[in-house]
């Protein structure tokens, strides 16, 4: 059973005791009482779940990180345990949705597409950055621990603040730029198959931020562009449709103080990317590209 329960109760008692000594206000008492009742309810729910789990062998145990700055009793981060009936093909996201819809509707996480294209549900599952919807339960060791992405500010439960990640993505001028378009009205720009192949993997990024969360350098240096943004820059720098002058500009962007040189080839970004983008390879190629480009003028 969940290890947090006794601790939580202790806490509630403590606060109650405290308030007694220094002339409790009615509000404090009420709040303490409320908290106690909430704990009670949770304990009861968890016992029920555990019983159900015992009755039915086929359940999975999930330990989920909980935190909410707004709700008393959740301000102190803790883990809640859920027992979810296992069905074949179940993903971590399915399990979380089940837990939310059946046990605790305040369990909060981002999700939308359920098919690894929206990039909403990157989380820290059993110690690794994973897309919850793309992670099969039966490939994980139990109990399954689900936490929000490390190195990011937690908004609530499994939701982290993505603003910083978006800023980095948008810092590399992530839009196509060129000075020449073909003449004809319905003329497309030509691009060789090889060139499209070269940028193909880099265009698959779904902005999930798993890579950024896994990179120790990004954790230490908030200004580091990070693997995803550099990959985005790669996507354009290597696109032959953009032309030479634009490429020069692109290289200047990625060469800035907190750009490619920060990368220490840790490879963890490449390991966790749910879209299998060879991030380290792209970063390294840009470093070489930058050096080559600069050597020309030496």
């Amino acid at each position, binding site marked *: 059973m969940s290890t947090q329960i006794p601790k939580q109760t202790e806490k509630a008692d403590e606060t109650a005791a405290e308030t007694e000594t220094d002339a409790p206000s009615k509000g404090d008492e009420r709040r303490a009482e409320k908290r106690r009742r909430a704990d009670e309810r949770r304990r009861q729910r968890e016992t029920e779940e555990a019983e159900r789990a015992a009755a039915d062998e086929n359940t999975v145990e999930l330990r989920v990180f909980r935190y909410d700055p707004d709700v008393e009793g959740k301000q102190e*981060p803790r883990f809640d345990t859920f027992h979810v009936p296992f069905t074949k093909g179940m993903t971590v996201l399915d399990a979380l949705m089940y837990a939310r819809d059946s046990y605790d509707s305040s369990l909060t996480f981002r999700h939308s597409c359920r098919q690894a294209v929206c990039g909403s549900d990157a989380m820290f599952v*059993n*110690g690794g950055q994973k897309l919850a919807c793309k992670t099969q339960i039966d490939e994980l060791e139990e109990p399954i621990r689900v936490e929000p992405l490390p190195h990011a500010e937690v908004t609530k439960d499994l939701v982290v603040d993505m603003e910083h990640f978006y800023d980095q993505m948008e810092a590399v001028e992530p839009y196509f730029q060129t000075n020449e378009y073909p003449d004809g009205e319905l003329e497309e720009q030509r691009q060789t198959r090889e060139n499209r192949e070269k940028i193909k993997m880099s265009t698959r990024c779904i902005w999930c931020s798993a890579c950024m969360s896994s990179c120790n350098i990004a954790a230490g240096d908030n200004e580091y562009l990070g693997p995803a943004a550099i990959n985005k820059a790669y996507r354009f720098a290597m696109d032959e449709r953009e032309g030479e002058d634009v490429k020069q500009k692109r290289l200047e962007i990625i060469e800035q103080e907190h750009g490619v040189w920060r990368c220490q080839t*840790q490879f963890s970004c490449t390991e966790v990317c749910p879209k299998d983008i060879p991030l380290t390879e792209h970063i*390294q190629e840009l470093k*070489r590209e930058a050096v080559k480009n600069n050597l020309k003028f030496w």
Partner: protein
Amino acid sequence: MSQSYNRGLIEDFSRWREFEAGMWAWIFHKFTGWVLIGYLFTHIAVLSTAIPASGAETAVLQAGNDVYTQTIVSLEGLLLVRILEVGLLAVAVFHMLNGARLLLVDLGVGLESQDKSFYASLILTGAITVASVPTFIAGAF
């Protein structure tokens, strides 16, 4: 700076479980690099005893009674120093092998087998260290 909530000791610790090869390599490389630069300073400090020694008489030098030779011999006579030297060798060998691996990575060679090359560096380091123990310890007893 980046922020993260304290998730308790055990939880924090478990993060290490999924450290991938590349990350261990990074940590080891860092550690060995620092040891090496630290050693370089001490090394030069010890060697500088050669400066006063060079003023000594030729006979003294020949007999090995100068400050430099004395310092080295007494240091080398200590088992601890010998053991530390083996450690230094291990550190240096790892840093060299992994450094070579990193140079290849920078050249874009063998990125798919980066984990294998890391393990190879580890194993080779171990092998070379063990193999050199006799040479390093020789004469210490």
